[in-house]
């Protein structure tokens, strides 16, 4: 590091230590570049501190309690009690270990760490304001920068997160008591993961969603399975309604008021209101305009397939750079940014970014749906295997859902897959590799799959698409 009078210099400056930023910083350092990572809050970003990780911990805890309490059919009798404070403590411990790990990994790879809030002063300089009174600030010059400042939950008018009873997803992941009645505004993946979690923890959950179904981007048969299971768990759905305001209920608690497009009003008695209607990029205070970068009308920074912004030596990755707003996409972009900066032939040429929803059952998808394949001009062929025909699924007691594989009829190339069912988030990895490798249905079908596993369903789906499944009837 070149140390000047006032200004410290670094080859690569990374702003934000979420899964986009810390991964970019580590890879840049591995490439032998002098790298500095600035984080204003906590290592690991939204994902580790109030996103992916804490949500999955609570999903495990609530899931185990629920499963154990409903296993008489297999001869297991239990009446589990959940100590929510203890569950949160465990979750916090997991988060601490992971965020501590990120810090250690950064250091071990030689990344310089600075705590503070960065804002651009010019095209090759930032000011970093250190947190706390009288902590001062420093100026840092860079040759390349990676903006990885992430996103935050969108607030809706009338529902300030500041209110004790209005929860953001972060609050829902940090509550040490379970509300009797939880109203959730938004039936997207975050809303649905938390609806499932709280329903299993014993809350009466009411979901209010403007659209006419949950999990907007997913196919109808995928949504249906998750929606029906959530309903079984006691989640009530109110579609076509937008949250308009809240008020105090005369008998304690609150009323969540909603309105349809036709101005029909409803109210729901609740004790907490979780607003989970999406996330917006974090660029405020960053003064990107000082670096010559513009944001689009939603605040995202536009990038090319090498993660470069309009200013070539400044990259943007992760949520702040727009869709798909997923942790693993952020990390993948972070790696590409670092490698491009290092002069390597990297690009965002991934064929497909898988995605998972950790509801009950889980969803795992990658690549194209049948409709998307048609739109793209393919002549798709589709194969399915329902988990209720899977021996492994039966032995786990979880037989809802199916594995589906989409391929090009002529060439057999696997174009995508949709899995809803037990361990769908894990099973999709094989399909992702198939898509990325340019594997054919035959390749997947001819790969021997361990018996008894859920992964056999992927093989069976491939066989089904070829009209020769063994364990399902072929169409």
């Amino acid at each position, binding site marked *: 590091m070149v140390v000047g009078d006032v200004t410290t210099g670094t080859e690569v400056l990374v702003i934000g230590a979420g899964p986009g930023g810390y991964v970019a910083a580590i890879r840049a350092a591995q490439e032998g570049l002098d790298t500095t990572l600035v984080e204003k809050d906590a290592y690991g970003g939204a994902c580790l501190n109030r996103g992916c990780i804490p949500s999955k911990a609570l999903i495990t805890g609530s899931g185990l309690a629920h499963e154990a309490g409903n296993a008489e059919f297999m001869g297991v009798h239990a009446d589990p009690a959940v100590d929510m404070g203890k569950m949160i403590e465990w979750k916090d411990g997991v988060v601490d270990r992971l965020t501590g790990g990120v810090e250690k990994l950064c250091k071990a790879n030689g990344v310089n760490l600075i705590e503070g809030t960065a804002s651009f002063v010019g095209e090759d300089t930032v000011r970093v304001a250190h947190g706390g009174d009288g902590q001062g600030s420093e100026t840092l010059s860079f*040759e390349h920068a990676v903006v990885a400042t992430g996103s935050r939950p969108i607030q809706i008018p009338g529902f300030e997160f500041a209110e004790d009873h209005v929860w953001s997803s972060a609050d829902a992941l940090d509550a040490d008591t379970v509300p009797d009645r939880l109203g959730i505004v938004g039936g997207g993946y975050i809303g649905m993961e938390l609806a499932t979690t709280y329903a299993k923890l014993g809350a009466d959950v009411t979901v209010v969603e403007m659209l006419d179904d949950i999990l907007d981007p997913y196919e109808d048969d995928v949504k249906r399975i998750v929606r029906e299971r959530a309903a079984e768990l006691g989640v009530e759905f109110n579609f076509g309604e937008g949250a308009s305001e809240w008020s105090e209920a005369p008998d304690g608690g609150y009323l969540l008021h909603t309105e349809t497009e036709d101005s029909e009003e409803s109210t729901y008695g609740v004790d907490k209101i979780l607003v989970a209607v999406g996330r917006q990029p974090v660029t405020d205070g960053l003064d990107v305009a000082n670096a010559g970068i513009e944001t689009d009308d939603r605040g995202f920074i536009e990038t090319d397939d090498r993660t470069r912004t309009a200013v070539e030596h400044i990259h943007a990755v992760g949520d702040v750079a727009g869709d798909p707003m997923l942790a693993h996409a952020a990390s993948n972009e972070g790696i590409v940014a670092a490698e*491009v900066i290092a*002069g390597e032939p990297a690009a965002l040429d991934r*064929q497909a970014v898988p995605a998972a929803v950790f509801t009950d059952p889980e969803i795992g998808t990658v690549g194209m749906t049948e409709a998307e394949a048609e739109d793209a*001009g393919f002549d798709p062929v589709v194969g399915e295997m329902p988990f209720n025909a899977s021996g492994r699924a039966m032995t786990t007691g979880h037989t809802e859902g199916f594995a589906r594989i989409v391929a090009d009829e002529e060439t057999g190339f696997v174009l995508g897959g949709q899995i809803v069912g037990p361990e769908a988030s894990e099973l999709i990895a094989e399909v992702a590799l198939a898509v990325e490798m340019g594997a054919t249905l035959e390749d997947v079908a001819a790969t021997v799959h361990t018996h008894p596993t859920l992964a056999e369903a992927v093989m069976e789906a491939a066989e089904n698409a070829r009209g020769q499944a063994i364990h399902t009837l072929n169409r």
Partner: protein
Amino acid sequence: DAEPDTPAGRTFAPPSARRLARELGVDVAAVDGSGPGGRVTEADVRAHAEGDAGAADAGGPDDGPEPRPAPTPTDTGSDGRKSAVSKRGADDGSADAPATPA
């Protein structure tokens, strides 16, 4: 040529290429692979079967068919098979030169 010697007589080829080789009566171990590390593709097997064993070689990764079917299915090469990575390598050095660190 480019194909490295693989021990134990192991030929790296996906199941579909191996089966095609049997169908065409080709010894897959005798086919020159054009994929990464000498991986044998279906196109390589076909080229070999047509007694045109050089064709697959001559091409190399850059000249192969698109790694996946193009959005227009009609002009799709039916045997193109490249990994994300071979494609990534192949793409590069093209018009768009990557930035180099100072």
